[in-house]
């Protein structure tokens, strides 16, 4: 017993000493910027930045190949530290993205055509007759997105639709990949108005399966004061989508959508403070007089 302990301990000691000496002798000079960057990055090696681990990202930032806000989970705090090291201001960051659920098909609005009793996974449910919802584009409510979220930002609401906690959401896009129905999309964090429907069928058909779906009536398209919303062609049909570059969040489309498919999200006070710190949001000043947006009402 004693021999075993001594033998292993001395083996470990010898190897340790050799390694210690080797690390002294074979030390490679690393760019001090990279070392500092590795220190401020979270070290979770999650890969959300697209580089192999945090040290890979640090090298890319130091080489100027990656943006200073490339670390998604690190958020503003990390971006600030990185900006300090790189001698930039974090105001140079691009706007963060937030995941949005593009379906409002609660049980009373879009019926289930059968009761799914299998393993609670949307991927599996999608394999049975295009899923259990009357609307084949709708959310099944089985929570695959909530399970996939690495930041616990998604919970399943009582209405069987996922709820996204905007303060926790980092815009990493894992849920977008996970949803077999392609209901979750990423959008700019300051975007407050979006089309909350994914049904690309013709108006009549989509109305039949869900009372709150986009019926492609183009009222929003015609009325939008900034030409930001259009009924566009997608792979499976047409649907109204907002061009976030042009949208001024005036809310005209949301107020005038006959089915209520266009949704306005309440601004979270702290959340917008966070966003405002990071990206100076310029108040859109009306240049050509009243745009009939209805905000003053």
């Amino acid at each position: 017993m004693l021999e075993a302990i001594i033998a292993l301990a001395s083996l470990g000691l010898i190897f340790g000493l050799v390694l210690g000496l080797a690390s002294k002798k074979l030390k490679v000079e690393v760019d001090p910027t990279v070392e500092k960057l590795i220190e401020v990055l979270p070290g979770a090696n999650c890969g959300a930045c697209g580089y192999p681990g945090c040290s890979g990202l640090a090298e890319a930032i130091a080489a100027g190949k990656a943006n200073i806000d490339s670390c998604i989970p690190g958020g503003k705090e990390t971006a600030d530290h990185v900006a300090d090291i790189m001698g930039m201001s974090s105001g140079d960051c691009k706007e963060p993205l937030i995941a949005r659920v593009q379906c409002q098909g609660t049980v009373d609005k879009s019926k289930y055509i059968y009761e799914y009793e299998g393993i609670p996974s949307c991927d599996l449910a999608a394999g049975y007759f295009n899923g259990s919802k009357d609307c084949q584009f709708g959310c099944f409510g089985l929570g695959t997105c909530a399970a996939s979220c690495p930041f616990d930002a998604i919970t399943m609401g009582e209405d069987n639709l996922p709820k996204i906690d905007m303060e926790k959401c980092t815009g990493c896009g894992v849920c977008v990949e996970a949803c077999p129905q392609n209901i979750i999309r990423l959008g700019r964090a300051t975007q407050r108005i979006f089309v909350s429907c994914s049904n690309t069928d013709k108006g009549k058909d989509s109305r039949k399966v869900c009372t709150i779906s986009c019926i492609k009536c183009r009222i929003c398209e015609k009325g939008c004061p900034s030409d930001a919303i259009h009924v566009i062609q997608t792979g499976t049909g047409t649907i109204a989508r907002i061009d976030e570059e042009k949208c001024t969040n005036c809310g005209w489309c949301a107020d005038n959508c006959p089915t209520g498919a266009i949704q306005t999200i309440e601004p979270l006070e702290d959340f917008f403070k966070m966003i405002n710190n990071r990206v100076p949001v310029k108040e859109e000043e009306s240049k050509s007089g009243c745009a009939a947006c209805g905000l003053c009402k």
Partner: protein
Amino acid sequence: MSYFAMIISAMLVSNIVLSQFLGVCPFLGVSKKVESAVGMGMAVVFVMTIASAISWLVYHFILVHYGLEYLKTIAFILVIASLVQFVEMVIRKFSPGLYKSLGVYLPLITTNCAVLGIALLNIQNGFNFLETVVNGAANALGFTLALVLFAGLRERVDEMDVPAALAGTPISLIIASIMSIAFLGFTGLV
């Protein structure tokens, strides 16, 4: 056994991945591109050959000497883990190009059961020192061969119209099992 027969046997007949099912995780994990498969293979050749040699020395000159043969597994883990660290430092110092191309694969080898498996099998089969080194290198080459072939197949399958239910990992596992069956065809060659 002649050395030539030993090399053929290690690479084809009893291929470490496809017949002995050791090192399956890097086989599945590092085989999406032929390039990275070659990198991983080279790193394993390097480490497995040296690890075989050193573990043989440790076993025969330390463990056997003090009658501690039963400690060989843990002692070999110690040898391999430190060796990988050491090799990483050496490569980093003297060949930054190779270090870059090996990337994360080098530390991954620390936890590779194939390296430990070969070190233990060398002892179990009672090889002498030269046989141990040859066997280690040949097995590593067999590992590289399996990895590169598999990566080549996966690169092609990625372009194919695979049924949705089989796309990704399932089809890879099916390919791996068919490769394994194919390699069984070498049985009796040596």
